[in-house]
């Protein structure tokens, strides 16, 4: 790859992966995936279980070091930067298994993110009353995900679906340019799924969302573009209509059953 | 012939005695590894139990005339039973709470056992003779090797590998690990976790007791003989890779050798060398020499 001259990036491409890949002891989890995400899009990544979607996310955010390939964020190469640096550049992710801070309250969970936005150098000399100035904004965000009533509960105590919502809230609080969501609606009830869909959609205005999802309603409902991975490589990409008509995709992933879009 | 400034026979001798010490490390670290792997408790009473093994053997011999050979069988059984009682009555209550409480509890037990032993027997050593069959020594040409030490190597290797086979070659190992990681789900599969845990703890301390009996004829039997053992032995468990039974056995032997050779070349550093090895291993191979990543 090294010798190939780099084509100038299209202006509206915010996130680009070039031949990104990773092997685990001889097993190729992600082969050579190239992906370009347009600014403002909701870009879904779907594919059979074990296709390498989560691993691909981990590669994009440097939680796993790629075996090959490069990642560009807004035209600048970010391959090899630390996960924290990447987050600071405006690309933030959520986790497939819910990740909240159990021993902090719901409100404090969000404040951790808000605090980060204001620098994030360890401030150990001021009292944490300083953080109260974030409360208002935090509550606002919690209201968006309908968690404001649980603001003072410890995060361990809330139900699973609520935890996922909280995780989303924390991610949103950072106001990232690009947000990577790994199965954001997993484990949620129908109402919540729809709510999260709406939330992601409203959030995506002016930003970019990349998400992994198995719930076809969600994928069909809100994604602008879809990339299908299978066995670590790209199988197809396009709009929902294009992809869902693709024989290979139906075979490998969607199955013959009809998936109704909620709208 | 010299090897880095020491006569070759001396170096070979060091390897042999290093192996003997390594055998002790192997049994002790094996017991500790089993307990840590299973109950997630750093068993700080391990040294005290080892001492108890030696002391019981001594008591059985001097007070009741029970021979070494019988002690080798009886003492681990007694101590294993004692371990089961400890687990049932005390350790059991810890699984719900933070595991650092295990440190406090087992340290407390060590204080009690050692304290009482010291109260009754003082700190000075007591002598325990090697059994008839193993008194005397083989002449290897480059050194005199006491027969008893050969027996120690053989006995500990047999016990270690028997334990290893029992755990790894049967489904026991998988049950044990599953029960540690998520006891609730293991139960839901029909595994009797609580009996398993009790027996494992019993086995772990029985191994320490066995090591104690093995040690009695070599070291002076004293209430303080196991006092500082725990950190070295636990370091070995960590170097070997926690959760790896085979790792703790091989690392035990290996570090016995390393320590022996350090004693030959730079005795002052012979205790710290294990910790240096540990730092290096943990930095280069985070999960230990034999640990799974």
């Amino acid at each position, binding site marked *: 790859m090294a010798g190939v001259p780099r084509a100038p990036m299209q202006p509206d491409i915010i996130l680009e992966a070039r031949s990104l890949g990773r092997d685990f002891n001889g097993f190729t989890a992600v082969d050579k995936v190239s992906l370009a995400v347009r600014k403002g899009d909701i870009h879904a990544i779907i594919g059979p279980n*074990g296709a390498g979607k989560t691993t691909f996310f981990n590669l994009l955010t440097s939680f796993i070091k790629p075996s090959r390939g490069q990642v560009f964020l807004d035209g600048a190469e970010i391959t090899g930067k630390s996960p924290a640096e990447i987050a600071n550049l405006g690309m933030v992710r959520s986790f497939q298994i819910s990740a909240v801070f159990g021993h902090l309250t719901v409100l404090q969970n969000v404040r951790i993110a808000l605090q980060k936005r204001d620098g994030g150098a360890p401030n150990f000399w001021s009292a944490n009353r300083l953080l109260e100035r974030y409360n208002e904004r935090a509550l606002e965000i919690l209201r968006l995900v309908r968690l404001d009533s649980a603001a003072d509960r410890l995060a361990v105590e809330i139900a699973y*679906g609520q935890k996922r919502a909280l995780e989303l809230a924390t991610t949103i609080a950072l106001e990232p340019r690009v947000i990577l969501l790994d199965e954001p609606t997993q*484990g949620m009830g129908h109402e919540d799924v729809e709510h999260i869909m709406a939330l992601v959609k409203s959030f995506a205005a002016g930003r970019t969302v990349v998400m992994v999802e198995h719930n076809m309603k969600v994928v069909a409902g809100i994604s602008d573009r879809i990339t299908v991975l299978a066995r670590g490589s790209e199988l197809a990409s396009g709009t929902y209509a294009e992809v869902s008509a693709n024989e290979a995709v139906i075979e490998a*992933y969607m*199955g013959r059953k009809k*998936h109704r879009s909620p709208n | 012939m010299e090897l880095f400034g020491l006569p070759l026979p001396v170096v070979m001798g060091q390897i042999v005695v290093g192996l003997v010490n390594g055998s002790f490390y192997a049994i002790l670290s094996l017991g500790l590894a089993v307990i840590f792997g299973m109950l997630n408790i750093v068993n700080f009473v391990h040294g005290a139990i080892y001492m108890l093994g030696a002391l019981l053997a001594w008591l059985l011999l001097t007070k009741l005339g029970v021979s070494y050979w019988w002690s080798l069988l009886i003492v681990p059984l007694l101590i294993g039973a004692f371990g089961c009682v400890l687990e049932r009555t005390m350790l059991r209550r810890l699984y719900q709470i933070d595991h650092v409480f295990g440190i406090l509890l087992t340290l407390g037990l060590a204080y009690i056992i050692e304290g009482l032993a010291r109260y009754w027997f003082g700190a000075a050593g007591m002598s325990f003779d090697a059994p008839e069959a193993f008194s005397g020594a083989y002449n290897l040409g480059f050194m005199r090797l006491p027969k008893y030490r050969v027996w120690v190597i053989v006995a500990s290797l047999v016990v270690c590998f028997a334990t290893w086979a029992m755990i790894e070659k049967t489904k026991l190992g998988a049950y044990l690990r599953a029960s540690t*990681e998520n006891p609730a789900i293991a139960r839901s*599969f*029909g595994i009797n976790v609580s009996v398993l845990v009790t027996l494992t703890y019993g086995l772990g301390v029985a191994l320490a007791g066995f090591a104690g009996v093995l040690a009695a004829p070599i070291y002076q039997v004293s209430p303080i003989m196991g006092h500082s053992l725990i950190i070295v032995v636990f370091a070995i468990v960590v170097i070997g890779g926690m959760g790896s039974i085979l790792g703790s056995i091989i690392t035990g032997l290996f570090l016995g050798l390393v320590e022996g050779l350090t004693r030959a070349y730079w005795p002052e550093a012979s205790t710290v060398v294990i910790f240096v090895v540990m730092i290096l291993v943990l930095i280069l191979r985070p999960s230990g020499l034999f640990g799974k990543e």
Partner: protein
Amino acid sequence: MTSSPLALEVKHLQAWYGESHVLHGIDIEVRQGECVSLLGRNGAGRTSTLRAILGLTSQRSGEVRIHGRDVMSLPTHQIARLGVGYCPEERAIYASLSCEENLLLPPVLKPGGMSLDEIYDLFPNLKERRKSQGTRLSGGEQQMLAMARILRTGADILFLDEISEGLAPVIVEKLGQVIEALKQRGYTIVLVEQNFEFAADLADRLYVIEHGEVVSHLPAAEIASQQAALKELLGI
């Protein structure tokens, strides 16, 4: 079907996690060979119902019978040995065991379980990744493994908690077929599901749980006629 004996009988089941009272009297009956689904919103107490039956909550009261046997005083592992297989919602794959070790872990409870080959036929992913460490599997693979694990043991009452979650639609489809097949074989199945369509296709009867109580109970045939009520209860 109604003539077959009760496999599971739950009366006034209450349960607590520490201080918090999460089940307030659940009544459920499942006959042998039936597939019953528990529906409800997040946090309604469906998972807790399964856990309480197995004795995995910190405290419980009421009455639970499995194959007619009162199990309130039995420890979890003995309840399991009556032939209950539990596939938990958090998957609980053992990190310290490989995929295959995870699969082989649960002791065989009764004859009649699936063989390893049958299971690998069902979930080819698992065969491919069988040497991998349990938690290195992808989310969906872990889900398959959790399900596969209890098919081997011959358990004839299966508690399946959100098994379709996080799986590709093709796999979900296939899972549906598997459950059909299991029903054919005479397994008794309790299905906790978020995915209503999936559950509705498979279940003979539905229980709707809310705030730790059964608020509605209807046979599959009535689903269509009860759409409005279900919509109210589940927000579909």
